[in-house]
């Protein structure tokens, strides 16, 4: 089916493992994701491969290139008048909440 050369061209790019276990723990912490101890090595491996893979962007000459801000040229973020358009849906929305009391979302105690 698919020729090996095709993948080799991408997969051979960058051979150093770029991320350490410590790096991945930091990233997970920033992303507020609890990663089980035994899963960490899997993420160290796959995230390193992804980062190595995207390193090939460095080969593109972009000194004179503007970063792309929007897929459609001349399209800017549309603003709307600052007028209320929504009605109160609190009760309806709180039906999906894990814990609610007296119309409030309940979380563990934040301030001791």
């Amino acid at each position, binding site marked *: *089916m*698919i*020729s090996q*050369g*095709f*993948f080799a*061209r*991408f*997969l051979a790019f960058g051979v150093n493992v770029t*991320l350490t276990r410590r*790096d*991945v723990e930091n*990233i*997970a912490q*920033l*992303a*507020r*994701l*609890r*990663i089980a101890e035994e*899963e960490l090595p*899997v*993420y160290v491996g*796959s*995230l390193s*491969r*992804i*980062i190595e*893979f*995207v*390193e*090939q*962007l*460095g*080969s*593109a000459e*972009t000194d004179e*290139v*503007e*970063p*792309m*801000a*929007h*897929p*459609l040229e001349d*399209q800017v*973020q*549309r603003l*709307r008048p600052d007028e209320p358009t929504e009605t109160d*849906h609190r009760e309806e*929305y709180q*039906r*999906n*909440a*894990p*814990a609610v009391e007296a119309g409030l*979302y309940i*979380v*563990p105690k*934040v301030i001791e």
Partner: protein
Amino acid sequence: MSLHLKTAAELGRGIRAGEFSSAEVTRHFLDRIGQGNGRLNAFITVTAERALEDARRADAAVAAGKGGLLTGVPLAHKDIFCTSGVLTTCGSRMLSNFVSPYDATVVARLAAAGMVTLGKTNMDEFAMGSSNETSFFGPVRNPWDEERVPGGSSGGSAAAVAARLAPVATGTDTGGSIRQPAALTGLTGVKPTYGRVSRYGMIAFASSLDQGGVLAQTAEDAALVLEAMSGFDPRDSTSVDAPVPAYSAQLDRPVKGLKIGVIREFFGEGLDPATGDAVQAALEVYRSLGAELVELSLPALPLSVPTYYVVAPAECSSNLSRFDGVRFGYRCESPTDLHDLYTRSRGEGFGAEVKRRIMTGTYVLSAGYYDAYYLKAQKVRNLINADFKRAFAEVDLLAGPTTPTPAFGIGAKVDDPITMYLNDIYTIGANLAGLPALSAPCGLVDGLPVGLQLIGPHFAEPRLLEAAHAYQRETDWHRRAPSAWA
């Protein structure tokens, strides 16, 4: 002909002409889902009662002389579209208990067109995947070979339409998630221009790339449904305020004189030769119809996969920060403090691929790395965009294969993210540049469908649909259903 082998257009005509009722059609498809879904796992939720209610309403509208082209025709929605009062999971444990309080604009528009909602289709978790294997609700099977994947992320929609469990289905496409599964299941799949279809109520993955669209049997069906779902929506700040052409009314424009650019980079090393032959044969059909074929090079295009795997994870890490276990969605058991609540709810609620992408995005956006990765990728994105612009100064449409190979085996690529990501090597470019693109079935390789991809300049949906329709008048690949499901 059995009802399920009819196209959406044929079903609409039959319902309006009184040959059969929407209720009959709807029951027929619900029965097929009941019999077939256990094998394919294409649907996460079937909304039978609601569908029959929709059908009764449609039949009443037709009886009152108020039926439109799609009135009474059933459809399935990808489970990324919020559906009022119905479970909307996005294929994730995180939303496995989420009953949407409102309708996505796409859902509301298609309901207003009289369409009947059969249910919600399975998908890769948060639309992140190319094989529908990352779903919390289990993999979807390809009706052409149940040991193979249907593609992803709109894999449930693709399998449902390919197996004729639904005449047509919605999908979303961030890097190929409509076109790739359409190709691997023998369907016509359209990803419209960025901003053409409202993203309101469409659960966000990568907001500068995401676009809703349709998976159908034919270009005609795709045109009909796209027309009904497109258009300006003040509730989506990226929605484009421009009139929607009557796509279905101009399908018969001839392709004679059409200039089609054949993308050289798409026919190189890596393309399965038999898939390439099928695509070349399709291009010859265009030549025989009077289209002019021009070979073109888009030199920055091979960088589209690494560009995407910076931009999409960056946007996903930001979008998915809303899932915090507080206001809706999954919450872990007995959190000890707020931090524990956040990290465990997210760690347990998201699957491995979603976590991998959130972490990739967090890394490329983190202090000290932003310029090297995200800014660099947005610059390369502009190079890719410039390549497309140059090409469209010369030609009307671009053409190539949709995928490098036909459908692969379930489990074959799950261990290596990069190998999986390379499935979208031909489709990602259109997302990066916001261009409309479609995949149309153009042959069978060892009994498995493969697709021809057509890419157009912004808002060239009419040209794309016309070109696909012209091809479908000359060929019958689009009318083939997998024999086990015909």
